[in-house]
């Protein structure tokens, strides 16, 4: 299978591990990720105001590219996934936005939300299957107690993201089981890490990151995994806790023997 792939700005800079291990693992699973040509930054936050247009254009350009290739568009970063998926929903369901965006972009063929946007974890669950993934694991991470950190962007709002149960998700725990480790459930796995507040109010960001890390630690986790570079930063750098935090793709690559 070949998919279009949107890496996003941080995967080319501070989060190279998230990108590299994601691509190597996909290859080991028989999937080719073709990077969208000339992709632009998604903007990192979904433009929530109903009248925003310009801030949605970069997402539509990537979506239209995948449509031209007749491929689903795969994302890895939680923020990119959130933004691109919601902009795609807008293009499907909001006539005003669809018309104005298409008028502005002047594409050869109007874009109406045709592309399927899937997160890498959804690709593992829905396109490959966790049972199939399990069969391809050569180095099961036996004895590792791993806390899945979902954060906000993948899950909410569920009526748009359709990722998993927003209050009691299981996809990352199922992933952890598939690579041979033990998932640790804890209370703060879908609470905010502090997000961009690290730029404006470090004390508030630290308070929030501490709550997440301590919550995982109390339940006996030895490490935390995430799909988001900003979550990883907040949980590592803004928390006083000392749990290691990894990208889920790094552990996947380890289990598949391609790290």
């Amino acid at each position, binding site marked *: 299978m070949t998919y279009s792939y949107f890496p996003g700005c941080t995967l080319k800079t501070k*989060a190279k591990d998230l990108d590299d291990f994601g691509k190597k693992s996909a290859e080991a699973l028989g999937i080719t990720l073709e990077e969208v040509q000339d992709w632009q930054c998604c903007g*990192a936050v979904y433009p*929530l*105001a109903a009248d925003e247009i310009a801030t949605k254009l970069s997402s539509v350009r990537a979506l239209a590219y995948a449509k031209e290739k007749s491929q689903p568009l795969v994302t890895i970063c939680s923020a990119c996934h959130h933004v691109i998926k919601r902009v795609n929903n807008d293009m499907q369901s909001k006539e005003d936005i669809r018309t104005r965006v298409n008028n502005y972009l002047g594409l050869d063929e109007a874009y109406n939300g045709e592309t399927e946007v899937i997160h890498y974890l959804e690709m593992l669950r829905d396109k490959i299957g966790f049972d199939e993934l399990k069969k391809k694991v050569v180095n099961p991470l036996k004895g590792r107690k791993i806390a899945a950190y979902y954060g*906000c962007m993948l899950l909410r709002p569920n009526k748009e993201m359709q990722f998993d149960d927003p209050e009691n998700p299981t996809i990352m725990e199922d992933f952890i089981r598939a690579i041979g480790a033990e998932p640790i459930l804890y209370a703060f796995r879908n*609470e905010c890490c502090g997000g961009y*507040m*690290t*730029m404006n109010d470090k004390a508030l960001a630290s308070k929030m990151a501490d709550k997440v890390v301590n919550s995982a630690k109390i339940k006996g986790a030895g490490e935390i995994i995430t799909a988001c570079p900003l979550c990883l*930063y907040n949980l590592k750098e803004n928390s006083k806790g000392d749990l290691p935090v990894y990208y889920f793709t790094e552990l996947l690559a380890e289990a598949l023997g391609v790290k």
Partner: protein
Amino acid sequence: MSEDIIAISGINPRQCMKCGKCSATCPAFEEMDIHPHQFASMVVEGRIDELLASESIWKCLSCFACVERCPRSVEPAKLIEAVRVSVLRERGGSFLSPDEIPAKLDPELPSQAIAAAFRKYRK
């Protein structure tokens, strides 16, 4: 002014039944001077100047907990966003200047944080 906030947010705040779930679930509640559930009634009452001057619009994390859990589709994050962009869209309405960035950088800070902060705090 209420009409502007309603148009920008795409939300009808009159649907709020004051159950308080939004404020109960907000991770920044303690940092806010005006709380998420109050945004709905204050927009209805036309108290927009107070909202424009509120600290809360810079404390909202866009975590969408209030959006997910609102049983009446009032989704206060969208009202907060509408007030915030109303400030930013005014000339000189920025909350974060590029000149402030170098002092905030550290070797691990992802570019995602800067992109997000500029989207939220600057036109």
